[in-house]
């Protein structure tokens, strides 16, 4: 035996905490809380303060009350960004989750080459959003892009993926789904393995068609997974940045400007308006938290 035991002997895990255990707990948490506090929570609080400041340089800043928020209300670009973000979210979340579910069901049962199919669908997970966006540009470039090249080969005219607002949004959505669906699929496949085969069998014996079994038995059993995926996709969509920033930079005009890209442009762009950028960010953060809480509450209610 080495050094004598410093701690009082077994206050077992699960028993009410002794002071010694609390000390160990805080010690184990300390490095993490230090990092989180300094580099995440601190800046978050700071951003909230900046929203009430007229601040255009590092170090400077004067209190300006609700000026930034007043400007926000009358800022057409902000409302456009909010609308764009809502549209982007309303498309990518349901389509992303449903595609994930569909592919998981499709690839759940035995199939030749199933492993390869699955790998191909979730390979985009490891491709960075930057590379995804660059590939997006390569595909949807109006003059030298691959998609328009194929269309030309088929004798069809060029599609204005970059100069038409709606089409630009579509191209951003397509690349987002490409990079995201694989994650939903993996999580659904994992959840499907927990579905009791006897329940499925029982439904079959009762005369349910495979479609009915899936629709009425399997899908309801996957509800916790669906809840998690909707929530995480909701957060990702509402905070979309990289793909838009690289592929369209919010354009043409403001037709793909999102809340985060707008906040970033106001802060780090030529405007250098740190206070206003922070204000947009704070509003975005509050909306995200509200959406999350709403979604969690809706889920708890439907489980009762």
């Amino acid at each position, binding site marked *: 035996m080495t050094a004598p035991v410093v701690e009082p002997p077994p206050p077992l895990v699960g028993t009410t905490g002794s002071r010694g255990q609390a000390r160990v707990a805080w010690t184990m948490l300390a490095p993490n809380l230090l990092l989180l506090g300094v580099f995440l929570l601190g800046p978050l609080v700071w951003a909230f303060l900046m929203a009430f400041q007229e601040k255009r340089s590092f170090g400077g800043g004067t209190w300006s009350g609700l000026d930034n928020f007043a400007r926000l209300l009358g800022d057409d670009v902000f409302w456009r960004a909010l609308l764009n973000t809502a549209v982007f979210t309303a498309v990518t979340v349901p389509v992303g989750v449903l595609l994930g579910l569909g592919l998981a069901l499709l690839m759940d049962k035995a199939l030749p080459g199933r492993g390869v199919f699955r790998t191909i669908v979730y390979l985009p997970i*490891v491709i960075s959003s930057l590379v995804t966006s660059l590939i997006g540009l390569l595909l949807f470039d109006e003059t030298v892009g691959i998609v328009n090249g194929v269309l030309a080969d088929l004798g069809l005219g060029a599609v204005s993926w970059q100069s038409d607002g709606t089409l630009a949004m579509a191209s951003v959505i397509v690349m987002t789904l490409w990079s995201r669906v694989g994650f939903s699929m993996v999580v659904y496949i*994992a959840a499907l393995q927990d579905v009791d085969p006897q329940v499925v069998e029982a439904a079959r014996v009762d005369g349910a068609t*495979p479609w009915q079994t899936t629709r009425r038995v399997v899908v309801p059993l996957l509800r916790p997974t669906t809840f998690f995926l909707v929530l995480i996709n909701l957060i990702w969509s509402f*905070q979309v940045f990289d793909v838009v920033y690289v592929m369209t930079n919010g354009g043409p005009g403001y037709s793909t400007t999102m809340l985060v890209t707008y906040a970033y442009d106001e802060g780090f762009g030529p405007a250098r308006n740190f206070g206003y950028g922070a204000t947009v960010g704070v509003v975005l*953060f509050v909306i995200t938290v509200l959406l999350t809480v709403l979604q969690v509450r809706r889920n708890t209610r439907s489980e009762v």
Partner: protein
Amino acid sequence: MSRPVRFLVCLVVAGVFVLPLVAMVVIAFTPRDALLDGGASLWTGRWTLDNFRGLFDQFPVARWFGNALLVASLTTLLSVTVNLLGGYALAKLRFRGRGLVVLVVLATLVVPTQVIMIPQFELVARLGLVGFFWAVILPSASTALGLFLARQFFVGFPDELVEAARVDGCTTFQAFRRVVLPNARPLMAVMTLLAFMTQWNDFLWPLITLRDPDLYTLPVALRLLQTAYDNDYGGIMAMALLSSLPLLVMFVVLQRYFVAGITRSGIR
């Protein structure tokens, strides 16, 4: 759906999903004049290594690669260590304020990083970290997601194992090190993969804080290349491929752990 039909549908789906990757690889090996001639096409029938040669001739690609490897490895090491410790404390130890800490961690999960970048930058600037790898490593190592994953995993860890160790005279920390950690390999695998992947792929924050081309990581350089090369897709895709290769290889080799990690760590 019958099996042949399902197979066909899968084939089509896989074709669509693999297309963007094929496009990246093909264009990376397509000569520049072929691209300028007829636009990007998946089949020009002409192949070249010039895009890669051009990159290595003009830029310190190996150095950028090494930088990325160093930064991602250090970030991963730091974040996995602190998250394992913290996650265990949050899951298995009882102390006043635990509920509050969990709540705060959950709340930070929804903070968009771009929103706090300005204060974060001001912070690292005041700490004198700008122009050093630490400016990237320290903020990135503090991820609420990793802490949350670790907590979820340890909540499901059997109490009996820990208790047995305690009865044998282990302190809380000894029990953690000798009994809990050796049984947490799947968790460690998925945490490592996630942390490494996130850091390897990050381009915006390192671009803002590193400032010195000698310190750039591969993805930062890729972003700069995009703005500089405009639509020389050959060079861009060659660089994109180089920067994606390590993760693609890692993923294919460690795929089993990756999937198992998602299954077991309770993110579903």
